[in-house]
Structure formats: structure tokens, C-alpha cells
């Protein structure tokens, strides 16, 4: 009986760790800078998390089928570049480009399944393709996002600042799509035991292609939101998203293999990763040191995650 309780305890710890890390960071920020505890303060602190949330959801789709996407950063950059160049002038062509990009993602998924290729290799290769396309579109940083997009991203949402609304929306969307829906169950099943899924008659090629297409869709959304915030783009605007999105998924309770992912945790993880950067600014850490310190925070949280997983195995 007590072992069952210990197991439950560890499980609760597993689930609340991302929220715990986020609240700790928030508390620390508010303690250093009480004025941040306002509509504008929170907006400023977490604004950059909005595109990252969707990029992390894209990464989460891929991790849910036990693959890894090393191209999501360049892909978001490409979507942002399309948003800053084609979208204002030739919207139909821009839409076509987005559709083609998502289709390319789906094709990559189908290829990975049918040819049994390692996803890391395929997506690493694709990352250079995305970067190349972005450089072709936008050789120097610049461009201009369409007005409707910039004003939508600057919209003053009622009651709560936009990042909070977006986080709630992204978490709910992810939860319904991956945790609650039958399709999501199938996706996680594919990550857990592909043979079992194939043996009950599902086409793994179509399934994996669908997962990758959804990831591409989330990537396009992330790129559009990013370019709406910054109003201009550059081909490397989101390259760090690749690794940060993986960190967000793992921080949120996902695992690299076995189809274990948590959409709510992923969104919280994306918020935490963004806040860690802001927190260091508030601590007046020199920008030179910030990246290293961010890494340190990540190591601490992921270390905790590993320790909890170990407890789980023992319990």
C-alpha cells in the first residue's frame, strides 16, 4: 500500500515539476522587480514565449512518435521570412508557399517511415534546405510583416495579457489534440509500439506523415506569430528554437522515446525557458554570460527531471 502511495507521490512530482519551476522563476522575477507584476510587465516578460510555444508543440508532435526534429528552428525562420516578404505583397503565393512547406514536412515523415530513415538525419538535412530557402527569399535581414499581422500580435487582450491567453489556448489545443483525441492516442501509440499499431491495421506511413504535417502547421503558426511581433525577419531569426523547443518538451515531462509527451507541460516548459532569459536580465547578468546561465538553469531542471524519473523506476 505504501509503495503505491510512494508511486503516486512521484507521479504527482513528475507532473507538477514544470509548473513548480515556472512559479519559482516568476516569484524570483517579481521579487527582483515588483513592477513586473502588471499587465504590461507580464506581457513584456513572456511575449517572446508565444512563438516558442507553438514551435515546442511542433517538436512535441515529433517526439510523440519517438523521432526528433532538428529543423524546426530554421523552419520557423523560413515561415517568418515568407511572412515578411511574400505575405504583404503576394498573399496567394505566400499561402501556396506555406502549403508547400507543410507538404514537404509530411513527405519527410512518410519518407522516414517507409524507408526506415533516422529522423535526426533527415531533419538535419532539411534544416539546411529551410535555411537556404530563407536566404534566397531574404538575403539580408529586413522585410515587413503585413499590418494586420503586426496589429494582431500587438492587440491588447482583455483581462489577461496576450501571452497568458495564448498559453491557455495552446495548452488546451495540444491537450485535446494529443492527450484526449483518438488521433492523439494513435500518435502516442505509434511512439510507444509501432508494431502493435501496424498489427491492428493502421498505415504507419500515413500516420507519420500526418504527424509531421501537423508539426509543420505548428511551425508555420510559430513563424507568423514571430514575424508579427518583430515586424521584420531574418533567415536566422529562430535558429535557436530547435534546441530550446526540445528542452521545453523534455522539461514539460516528455521523453525522447516511448511516446510519452505532455502538451500542457510543453507549453509551461516554453514559458519557463523564456522566463529564464528574462530573469537573468533582471539579475543584471551581463549578456555575455546569459546564454551560459540559461544553460545552467536548464541543466538544473533537467537534472531534477532525471532524478524524478529514477525515483519513478524505483517506486
Amino acid at each position, binding site marked *: 500500500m505504501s509503495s503505491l502511495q510512494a508511486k503516486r507521490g512521484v507521479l504527482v512530482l513528475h507532473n507538477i515539476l514544470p509548473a513548480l519551476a515556472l512559479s519559482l522563476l516568476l516569484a524570483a522575477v517579481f521579487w527582483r522587480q515588483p513592477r513586473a507584476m502588471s499587465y504590461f510587465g507580464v506581457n513584456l516578460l513572456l511575449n517572446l514565449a508565444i512563438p516558442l510555444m507553438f514551435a515546442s508543440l511542433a517538436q512535441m508532435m515529433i517526439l510523440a512518435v519517438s523521432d526528433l526534429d532538428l529543423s524546426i528552428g530554421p523552419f520557423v525562420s523560413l515561415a517568418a521570412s515568407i511572412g515578411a516578404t511574400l505575405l504583404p505583397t503576394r498573399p496567394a503565393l505566400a499561402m501556396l508557399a506555406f502549403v508547400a512547406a507543410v507538404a514537404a514536412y509530411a513527405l519527410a515523415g512518410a519518407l522516414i517511415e517507409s524507408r526506415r530513415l533516422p529522423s535526426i538525419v533527415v531533419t538535419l538535412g532539411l534544416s539546411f534546405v529551410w535555411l537556404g530557402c530563407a536566404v534566397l527569399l531574404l538575403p539580408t535581414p529586413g522585410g515587413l510583416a503585413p499590418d494586420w499581422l503586426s496589429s494582431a500580435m500587438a492587440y491588447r487582450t482583455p483581462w489577461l495579457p496576450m501571452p497568458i491567453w495564448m498559453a491557455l489556448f495552446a495548452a488546451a489545443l495540444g491537450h485535446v489534440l494529443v492527450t484526449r483525441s483518438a488521433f492523439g492516442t*494513435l500518435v*502516442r*501509440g505509434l*511512439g*510507444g*509500439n509501432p508494431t502493435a499499431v501496424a498489427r*491492428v*491495421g*493502421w498505415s504507419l506511413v500515413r500516420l507519420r506523415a500526418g504527424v509531421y504535417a501537423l508539426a509543420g502547421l505548428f511551425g508555420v503558426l510559430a513563424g507568423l506569430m514571430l514575424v508579427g511581433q518583430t515586424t521584420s525577419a531574418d533567415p536566422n531569426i529562430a535558429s535557436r528554437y530547435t534546441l530550446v523547443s526540445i528542452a521545453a518538451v523534455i522539461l514539460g515531462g516528455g521523453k525522447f522515446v516511448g*511516446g510519452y509527451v505532455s502538451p500542457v507541460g510543453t507549453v509551461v516548459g516554453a514559458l519557463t525557458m523564456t522566463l529564464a532569459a528574462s530573469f537573468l536580465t533582471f539579475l543584471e547578468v551581463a549578456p555575455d554570460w546569459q546564454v551560459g546561465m540559461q544553460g545552467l538553469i536548464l541543466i538544473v531542471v533537467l537534472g531534477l527531471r532525471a532524478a524524478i524519473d529514477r525515483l519513478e523506476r524505483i517506486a
Partner: protein
Amino acid sequence: MINSIPEMLFEARDTAKAFAAVQALRGVDFQVRRGECVGLVGHNGAGKSTLMNVLSGTLAADRGELHFAGLAVGSGWDVREAQRLGVRSVYQELSLCANLSLAENMRIAQPQFKGWNWRLAAGAQLMATLDRIFPGHGLHADQVVGELSIGRRQMVEIARAFTPGALALEVMILDEPTSSLDNQAAAQLLAYIREFVALGKSCILISHKLREIFTVTDRIVVMRDGQVVESVLTEQTSRDRVVAAMGQDEQVQENPRHVVAQTGSAEAPLVVNVSSTSAARLGVKAMAGEVIGLAGLAGHGQTTLLLRLQAGSATRAESSVWVGGATSFVAGDRQTDGVFGLWSIARNMSVGWFSQLCHRRLIDLKGEREYAEHWRQRLGLVTPDLDLPIFSLSGGNQQKVLFARALGSSASIILMDDPMRGVDVGTKRDVYALIAEEARRGRTFVWYTTEFDELFHCDRVYVFNNGEVAGELSRAELSEERVLDMSFDKIAA
């Protein structure tokens, strides 16, 4: 629609299937009638699981016809089509997603649960079937499969397959369904199978437990070497007759029975000694220069023993295992534990020899080359160049490389984990000769094999059953019947 044989439900005619060099099915005819339970028995590698995979649509046969309810089903036979017509299967390796709950696993198998509350509906249906087959199972629909014991998982998988749904359920194929069930659950399942066929449904039961086969089935089909060798009504046969049919000796060109005993000298030093944990059971001993065979059904502890010996020579991990010398391992599952896929043929051999080939912590490249060349000639390896990638070789030649890796090392004890799986006859003959030669030089072989004829190359044979040694046979005492008897006895008891 003309139904010439009304009671015939599912029929395979002249079905053949080969995996590379291995002919798993050589023209099998197999029938299931409506309301009949057919027991399918045979040795490991007799083709039972392959036949089942063809019937359930997970494997496409190379040749042959399938007929369902009197109609020929063409080349479009796949899992989907099989399920649409009502053919369902429970596989030997469990096919549940460990990261999903019971209800979610149910949904994956049967997509008819729709709407917001599909989870509840799917869970309730699965629970209802579990209650019917395994009353008192103690499972909940929202439990995650990964947290269940293997026996419970098997119960869930069986219940999932038996749960009626939008799709028909006409034939149930069960491959070793009781292998991880305890006695009570196994009895519950067998009772349920009788109820199931009494409703006019059909069942194909694959099992090594002959007692189960004789309790449940109406007809017994015996397979051997990819062929059906006997099909007889259960009431008209006996256990002895079935065992004899399973083990009928194929006429081998060179009967290995006549291999001259090379060693057996009692004064040779003891090199392996494994004492049994329980006094009732036998331990395992091996002298220098002996070839020891490990027999019995697959997965009954033979590989575990080899791994214990391997661990025992590196460190004295267990007090009950004593190994007097270095060991080298020949893997049977080449792709998983054998070859380094990106390395050359020569490197795949020499990776086992580094202790001899190293000179001041660096590899002696010239020595490596000469030694590899030596083994290439000794084994008759068919390749133009040893620097080619390992996958340029055929399966049999890859296996020869693994033998070279082990035999070229300085280890005095060679552990072999069913190394002839999927190897052609020519390679086998070469390797048997090599083993005999090396044994004469004082090397010890511990050889797990699933091929009965190979046991005649051993000086002594230990028969395994449920992780323990069930009996010991010298070469003179060896017969297939005695091995089968020892393998089955304790299970049946």
C-alpha cells in the same frame, strides 16, 4: 456465391514463404472449419508463427492461395482485409502500447468508438470481455499498460482481441497465448475458447503445451520444417503420436550420428561449473575440450545461462557460477547483437582479437590483416575483399565472420547462442567441422541450439525447461523423443 464446402471457413493452399535463404513455409495446406478449434504444434522454426502471420495478413506469402468462406481472397490480403472479414490474432510477442492506458489500447484496435466519450465506451467494453474471460482480473480501464505485469498484459491483449466490435469476429488465432499466464488464468482462457467455438466461431491455437492442445482442440495439425506433416482429429491421436510426428527425423545426407567422439576423457579439467539454486535440479558442468549442447524449447533459460557464464568469466558476479577461463560469445541474432553494420568484414572479425593484436595500445594493422586473411581461408569466406562492408556478405557468411571473431580470440570457452539461425547447409557443414577441430585442441563449447540435429555434434546435452535443467543426455542416449519428453514433461505436469 457458390459455397462448395459449406463448413470450410478459412483455407490456405500451397502456401510458401521464404526469408532470404530460409524456407519458412514450403507449400502448406491448412484448413479451419466453422465452429472448430485447431491446435497447431511443432518445433521452434517449424513455420507455425509464419503461417499465422500469413493468415492474419501481417506477412504476404510468396506463393499460394487463401480462401475465406469459400471465396478466394487475392493479393490484397492484408491486416485490414483480414480484420474486415473477421480474422483476429493474439501474437506471441505482446502487441500493446506500453505508454497507453487499457482503454486507449482498445481504441487503437477498434476504431468504432467515436465521440467525446470514446474512452469510457472503449474501456467499458474491454472490461466486460475481461470479466467474461478472466473473472477476478483486478484491472481498471485507465491503468497504463506499462505498469502491468507481463501476465496481466497478456490477459489484456487476449481480451482486447475477443472484444466484439463493429468488425466481424469469425476466426481467432492465438499464438502461445498462455506462455505468460498463470495456471488459473490459462484454465479460464481454455474454458472460454470452448465457449467461443460452441458459438460457431473458429479458433487456431498454437501452443507448446500439449496438455492444453489435447484439452481444447478438435483437430491437431503438426508442422515440421515448413510443412504440415499431420492433421488428425484430437480424439483419434495421442500425445506420443503427436510428439513422434513433430520429431520425425529428416534424412540428412551426412548423418551426424556417425561423427566420431573426439573427447570425453574423464581426466580433462573442469572449466565450467554452474550449481543449481534448488537441490532438486541439475547443475551444468563442462570439461576442457567438451562440446556441451543446450536443448529445449526456445526461451526456456538457455540464453540466460550463456549470459550468466559470460558475466561469470568477466567478474565473479554470482557465487553459483564458476568459469575457469576467458569466454567469447557467438551471437545468433546477427543484426541485433552480432555485426557492426558500418564496419568492414576484417574489422568485424578483428574486434574480438584486440587483446592479442594490440601493440602499445595501438592496433597492429599488419598483424590484423594477416590474421583476418588466415581466418578467411580457414572458413572459406566467399568475398573478393575483406575491406568490403559486412553487409556485402550473405547471411551465412556474416555468421562465419562472427565465428572467426570468437574463435580467433584467445578465449578458451566459446558460448554460442543458437548461431545457425537462418544459415545455409554449406556454412553449417564448414562450421561443424571447425568446432570439432577446435574442441580437439582443448577448447570448450557451450552451444545453445534450436535445431535438433545439431545436438548430435555435442558430447553432452542439457535439456532446459522453465529456466532450469530438466535433464542431461550423453551423445549415446540422445534421441529426439527423449529431448522432447524432457522439454514438455514439466510443463504438462
